[in-house]
């Protein structure tokens, strides 16, 4: 049964002073976290707040730079995911870890420590079915994992973890890919597990769900714990405020502009994600000349698919996409580039650049068929190098050797290469996705200045970012992306931090609630 008074019993998990630094950013900066036995504890925070890092440390993926962890009152050092499993900690990742070709039973069997030499399929399947039934859901143990729906896969993984006798379960944004009915099922399972004394960490940023299922809530911001609350003692509004904070060190916002002629028009765009689940559920968007439209939102709400639809790498299943007046829903990336859309992609090292090639090759990427670099089928090496050198100088990119593979350059310089290349083509529209992620202050400033310059010259800029400060500073208009839908765009004066925070988590005026849709 649940512990009413946590102070008497030992905590299931106690983390103190956890510090973890990655190059350039302190992901966890002295975080404390307590998990009582038998409770469902939500970990809340924006991306980059530190919740993923904290749980990755608990599940053994990373080792902390400093801090202590106690499990059931005993200090432990969690050295690897295997170690964590042995300690009874099981993590359900956002992306399924099931082996697609194996059956549910075979996947579960892999985790079982007491399996005999012979693999008796029927017996394992029976145990799997029994365990599932105990928590009130059905799973076909003999089905290959790839045939299951996302929700079913999740439940299968939970069963596997249970058969491994996991007593501490970490669920990383499990509801992100579930339909409402499946979310109900999941919550029922979670309550059942908690009732038997297992402890659950629930990571989410969907405030309505958080308020429904949690016993307690820990809010993280910028790598620190800002609050630990009982569910009864707080509200969605309060949580949104805690998550988003005051944000006073934002750069001075430039004067807001009103845009001119429409450059990009999206109407009712729907698209499926990689796993077949709907990612964009009817997006409407207007981007005009001479303005910056900022799209805020937590990663994973369809931003990646939106980027791909705009650049032609993903075909929408419904809706219309007009670029400078021409219908582009079925256009190839080459056609879209030719029409005048440049893109600074979110993944700069895999998509934005060819990491193993040199600076010249990367800078001429979109210029290869055009003069002076391209001449018919030939590539003019001399002109190409000229072109590259000019760009390097204009944008002060630090490149020690033109032949060196660009993956050896710093993140800032790599991004400047992408920026230089995209702007050099004189685009009418620029899509910038997380352009300053992972960059130091100087480089980030240069990138932002470049975006402003583009706008001032009359181009249209679409900025997709998780950095709310950046969006509020640069965006003339701001919209919020949530669960594959775009809120209406607000002018900068109208857009308050708090409102946006709520929109990001699915609340507030203008947000679309996904109620009874399947």
């Amino acid at each position: 049964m649940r512990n009413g008074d946590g102070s008497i019993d030992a905590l299931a998990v106690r983390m103190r002073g956890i510090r973890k630094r990655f190059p350039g950013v302190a992901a966890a900066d002295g975080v404390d976290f307590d998990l009582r036995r038998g409770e469902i504890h939500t970990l809340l925070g924006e991306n980059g707040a530190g919740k993923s890092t904290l749980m990755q440390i608990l599940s053994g993926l990373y080792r902390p730079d400093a801090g202590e962890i106690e499990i059931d009152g005993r200090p432990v050092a969690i050295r690897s995911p295997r170690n964590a499993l042995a300690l009874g900690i099981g993590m359900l990742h956002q992306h399924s870890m099931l082996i697609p070709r194996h059956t549910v039973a075979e996947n579960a069997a892999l985790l079982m420590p007491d399996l005999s030499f012979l693999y008796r399929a029927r017996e394992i399947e029976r145990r799997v079915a029994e365990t599932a039934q105990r928590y009130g859901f059905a799973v076909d143990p003999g089905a290959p994992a790839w045939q299951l729906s996302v929700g079913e896969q999740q439940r299968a993984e939970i069963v596997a973890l249970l058969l491994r006798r996991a007593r501490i379960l970490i669920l990383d944004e499990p509801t992100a890919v579930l339909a409402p009915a499946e979310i109900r099922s999941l919550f029922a399972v979670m309550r059942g597990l908690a009732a038997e004394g297992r402890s659950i960490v629930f990571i989410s940023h969907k405030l309505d769900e958080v308020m429904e299922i949690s016993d307690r809530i820990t809010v993280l911001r910028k790598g620190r714990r800002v609050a630990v609350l009982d569910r009864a003692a707080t509200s969605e509004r309060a949580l949104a405020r805690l998550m988003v904070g005051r944000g006073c060190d934002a750069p001075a916002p430039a004067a807001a502009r009103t845009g001119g002629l429409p450059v990009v028009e999206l109407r009712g765009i729907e698209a499926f994600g990689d796993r077949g689940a709907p990612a964009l559920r009817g997006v409407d968007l207007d981007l005009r000349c001479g303005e910056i439209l900022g799209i805020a939102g937590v990663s994973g709400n369809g931003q990646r698919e939106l980027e791909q639809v705009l650049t032609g790498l993903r075909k929408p299943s419904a809706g219309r996409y007009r670029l400078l007046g021409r219908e582009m829903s079925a256009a190839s990336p080459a056609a879209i580039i030719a029409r005048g859309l440049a893109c600074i992609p979110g993944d700069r090292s895999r998509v934005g650049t060819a990491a193993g090639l040199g600076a010249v090759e990367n800078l001429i990427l979109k210029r290869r068929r055009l003069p002076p670099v391209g001449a018919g089928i030939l590539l003019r090496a001399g002109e190409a190098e000229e072109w590259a050198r000019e760009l390097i100088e204009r944008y002060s990119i630090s490149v020690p050797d033109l032949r060196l593979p660009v993956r050896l350059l710093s993140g800032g310089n790599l991004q400047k290469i992408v920026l230089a290349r995209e702007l050099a083509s004189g685009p009418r529209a620029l899509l910038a996705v997380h352009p300053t992620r992972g960059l130091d202050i100087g480089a980030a400033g240069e990138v932002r200045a470049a975006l402003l310059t583009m706008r001032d010259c009359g181009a249209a800029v679409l900025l997709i970012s998780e950095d709310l400060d950046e969006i509020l500073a640069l965006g003339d208009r701001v919209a919020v992306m949530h669960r594959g839908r775009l809120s209406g765009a607000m002018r900068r004066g109208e857009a308050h931090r708090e409102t946006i925070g709520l929109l990001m988590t699915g609340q507030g005026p203008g947000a679309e609630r996904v109620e009874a849709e399947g």
Partner: protein
Amino acid sequence: MIVPALEKRLQATRPLRAAVTLGSLALALLLGGAVIAAVGVNPLDAYAALCRGAFGTRYGLAETTVKAIPLLFCGLSVSLALRMRLWNIGAEGQYVAGALAASLVALGIPGFGRPAYFVLMLLASFAAGALWGAVPGLLRARLNVSEIITTLLLNWVAIYLVQFFVYGPLRGADGFPFTSPFPPAACLAQLGWGRVHAGIFLAAAAVLALRFALERTVWGYEVRVIGDSPECARYAGMAIGRNIVAVMAAAGGLAGLAGFCQVAGVECRIPREIFAQYGYTAIIVAWLARARPLGVALVAFLFGGLLTGGEMIQIDLGVPISAINILTGSILFFLLAGDLFLDYRVVMRRAVSSRGGADG
């Protein structure tokens, strides 16, 4: 407990590359030397004689060149595919297909002059090889079927096809299972230097052409980008599927030219033993040359020398030809092992034991 562990290295410096390569070669030569010593021959004498035989005499150098030519074409073929991360294991079959096509022209259409035969046979062999490469390319581009398997399987189809012709319609007048000699005009001109034939010019042209194509044409640039990062290529508007087919076809065509050179230059007929494993050795050549055209030329030449020298020391010193195969295999073996040190750095670290913690 301190144990060695591997850590990824960002970039291997030139001196390190040289050191590792030399070290691997040294080990391979040691192994080969041991084998030679086991036969009762002094390894140093053997290696010296090998070099002399391959490169030291006029005749030897000529033989080396003759053997290098098909290796070069097939090496270029495999290396072109490798630049786009495709594996052409079918150079053998494409080579045979090219040889067959050239022979069909030579024996099927009598009475042309030398230039006409040259052009027609060249086109025919390139086309046949290209077909043998394009089919796997198409299957990979459209259906994502592994080109490793399809190119391998097509090798046999080519071999059986040639056998059909050689035992059937193209059977020589004397009834033996090889074809009649080609009309003299269809044979490649001999240059008066050993058995070296005009194919050498074709080979040199191929090397330069491929180098030019890769460095100086838009197509070559696209191949390099796709090979390095297909996602970036797609984002930049490059057509990946079409390029896969084009590259596989071009690679097949190059191997087909190897077949043309062999049957028209060396034998002037389809010989009994057409399958000389050039296709498989070429994979090693391309790998050692790191898929660079000039490198392929160099390595092919060295391998040609290895084969020629090997024949010489077989006759002169009684070292069996199999020792050369052992040497080849071990060179590759040790170079592969050495690659580990180029990609990773060995560090000593405290062992991370992944057991421990009580069971819940």
